[in-house]
């Protein structure tokens, strides 16, 4: 946040207007800090992130911002060079700014959907990392997804290969390697336009710069197909495998045993007619009731729910295996139809579900 604009220079003494503006900024910052402190103080311990998640999420957010910023700069620089503005291109390429800091300060990073996505990714990766290695029957058998890459069905084999690659890329991203910026389009748009505006504010005015930055941002927002997020590849593989209701519980268990949590999520999401993010939330929720109900709604048998619940309890220190065991019989006593009704909301479009919750919270609906 040590941007060059805030450093007073000897030949440009701080004027009163400048001072007032800075004081106003400082006051806004102080208010935001205080709000965060109050929230932190009042939040109960259970709602607090553990350090590992906090660190990984911070790194993941910075990496995603860095990746989107690099895409914009690269495209805008190319546009400027093409349009004969080589000086501006050089300046844009060489500019150093703390993009994450500036976006955070302007409130852009406080978008709930963005933070939910980052926490979802990190939570999923950390949970997958802690899933017990479960070799099933034979220790010399190949993992599920690797086996699927050899499938005779080209659709399955392709999808499995794409998922393996995306899984490795995501794991690298969580371990601090550069990100590919594989955000959903809405979130890319949420970041790309303010980034373009921030870059624009650091350049001397010239119409060609506006043109370059808006061209770059719209390309980044629309660049579907260049990056394959893990979530999308997992959904594609789930669709290609298309297990029937009888096979599904076995495939989900095998995916978890192979520590491919994303495939397990995608399989359940597909079977429920829900979306990836909604089922990921169920998987990450340490209380778990909604997940047990969802599996019951899919007519999973007792031992499948028991095995999946057990693996998740082993992977997540916040869960209690005993508490899970207490719930198992009550869950099995619920009829499949009643369970389906209880989780029917998961089938609604994501945005609609969010809107319903928001209005409920505000006492409108």
């Amino acid at each position, binding site marked *: 946040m040590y941007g060059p604009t805030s450093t007073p220079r000897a030949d440009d003494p701080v004027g009163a207007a400048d001072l007032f503006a800075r004081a106003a900024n400082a006051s806004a910052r102080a208010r935001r800090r205080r709000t965060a402190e109050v929230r932190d103080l009042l939040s109960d311990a259970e709602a607090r992130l553990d350090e590992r998640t906090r660190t990984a999420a911070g790194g993941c957010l910075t990496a995603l911002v860095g990746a989107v910023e690099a895409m914009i700069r690269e495209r805008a620089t190319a546009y400027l060079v093409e349009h004969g503005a080589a000086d501006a291109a050089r300046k844009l390429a060489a500019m150093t700014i703390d993009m994450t800091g500036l976006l955070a300060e302007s409130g852009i990073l406080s978008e709930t959907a963005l933070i939910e996505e980052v926490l979802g990714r990190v939570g999923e990766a950390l949970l997958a990392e802690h899933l017990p290695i479960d*070799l099933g029957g034979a220790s010399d058998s190949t993992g599920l997804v690797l086996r699927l890459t050899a499938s005779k069905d080209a659709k399955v084999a392709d999808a499995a290969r794409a998922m393996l690659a995306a899984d490795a890329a995501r794991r*690298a991203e969580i371990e601090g390697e550069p990100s590919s910026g594989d955000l959903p389009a809405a979130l890319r748009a949420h970041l790309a336009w303010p980034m373009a505006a921030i870059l624009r504010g650091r350049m001397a005015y010239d119409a060609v710069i506006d043109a370059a930055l808006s061209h770059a941002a719209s390309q980044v927002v629309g660049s579907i197909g260049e990056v394959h997020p893990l979530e999308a590849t997992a959904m594609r593989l789930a669709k290609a495998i298309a297990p029937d209701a009888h096979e599904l519980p076995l495939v989900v268990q095998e995916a978890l045993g192979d520590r491919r949590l994303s495939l397990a999520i995608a399989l359940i999401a597909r079977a429920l007619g829900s979306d990836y993010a909604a089922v990921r939330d169920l998987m990450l929720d340490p209380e778990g009731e909604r997940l047990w109900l969802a599996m019951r709604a899919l007519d999973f048998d007792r031992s499948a729910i028991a095995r999946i619940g057990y693996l998740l309890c082993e992977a997540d220190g916040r869960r209690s295996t005993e508490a899970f065991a207490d719930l198992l019989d009550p869950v099995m006593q619920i009829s499949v139809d009643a369970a389906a009704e209880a989780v029917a909301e998961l089938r609604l479009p994501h945005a609609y579900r969010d809107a319903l919750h928001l209005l409920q919270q505000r006492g409108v609906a």
Partner: protein
Amino acid sequence: MTAQPLATARFDANGHLVEADGRLSSLNAVAGGAPGAPFAIPAIAAIVRLAHRLGIAIARHVTVADGDEDVELLVRAEPDGDGVTLTVAGWQLHATGDAMVTRARRNADFVRADADWQWEVDAQLRLRFVSPIEGVDAAALIGAPLTRLFTLAEDDGGGVPMLEALAAQSAFDAQPAIVRATGERVVLSGSPMLDAGGRFGGFLGGVRTQDAPARSEGSPGGGFGDIFGTRLDKALRLPLGRIVANADSIAERIEGPLAEQYADYASDIAAAGRHLLGLVDDLVDLQAIERPDFEARREEIDLADVAARAAGLLSVRAAEAKVRIDRSGLGDALPASGEFRRALQVMVNLIGNAVRYSPDGSAVVLTGERDGDVVRVSVADSGKGIAPDDQARIFEKFTRVDPSEPGGSGLGLYISRRLARAMGGDISVESGPGEGARFAFTLPVV
């Protein structure tokens, strides 16, 4: 791995022991258990109960005391109609605290920390993961045999450490190899991944590059050269970070209620861990500035602004120490030539020291001035001062004026002066016992 003796036992629907063969029976008896009651070792009784309640097979590894020694047991409990059958393998003695599964997990941490990049294979040595590295199409390698990524070579003794480790399902190190896509010579290390039954599920591996710039030989880093920056740095940071994070979680009682004194111990552990992390930072800096090619950037900075920012960064610490930082003497801008980040680091060090040695209720006074072709910021405290004999010594490596004072690695001033000199400036001190100390940081004007 040598064949492990198996022991079995049966439990009824209430989790009470029906029968156990020799070794399990004596383990239970030693722990005060008997047939007709739950197993006397709680961890094993819990596995039996869980298998029964969930109706699925449960496998876990458990470390238990067997006489004077600890043994690691690979326990599997399987429901069998109206009760539970328990199978126990392992019985590996590890008086040194070394257990197979635990050891494998710890090895994995070392492999991670020590590597320039990583790979992971399954039990058939097919790649599950490859770090993104230049010149290697990681995505295309996933699922391929490890030998598509590396050509394994023999080590000096004519052995192939990885194959030996595969046979023994143990960890290996110093496996020479060549990255096929780039021809680069590397050294591989790996740690076995074992499931709760102790079965081999593949290797988690690390790669150290060989063609990196020459390390310890002839490097002036006081013996550790580049190795510190690239290896120990990571090797220490990861486990220290975990210690701090876990100790913080315990101190915050995130997992549940805890007696006050234990929460305090945890806070102490976290504080000590942070101190060690700070030391690692210092050593990394030391390693960087002692390289012959170390250079600080020369850009136009405002030293008064840098000092004010450093004071801002330390304001919380100062408030905790009941010390005021007086910046009113900094005056106008002091344009100088130097590297912003490094100058800030120097100012933070000087002001931080002053805060640490200041008595309660006193002030640390910052003054700025231009003096010919240098600008100077002075940091004055009213602490106990530094005797003339000690004034040269405090800029030496690992020197602390008062070793009884807590905190500090004895590297801060040494590093600060090196940095100041690399930017064409310097740090000097004026002080006498009982008079406080005044440190002056100078940089050339632009």
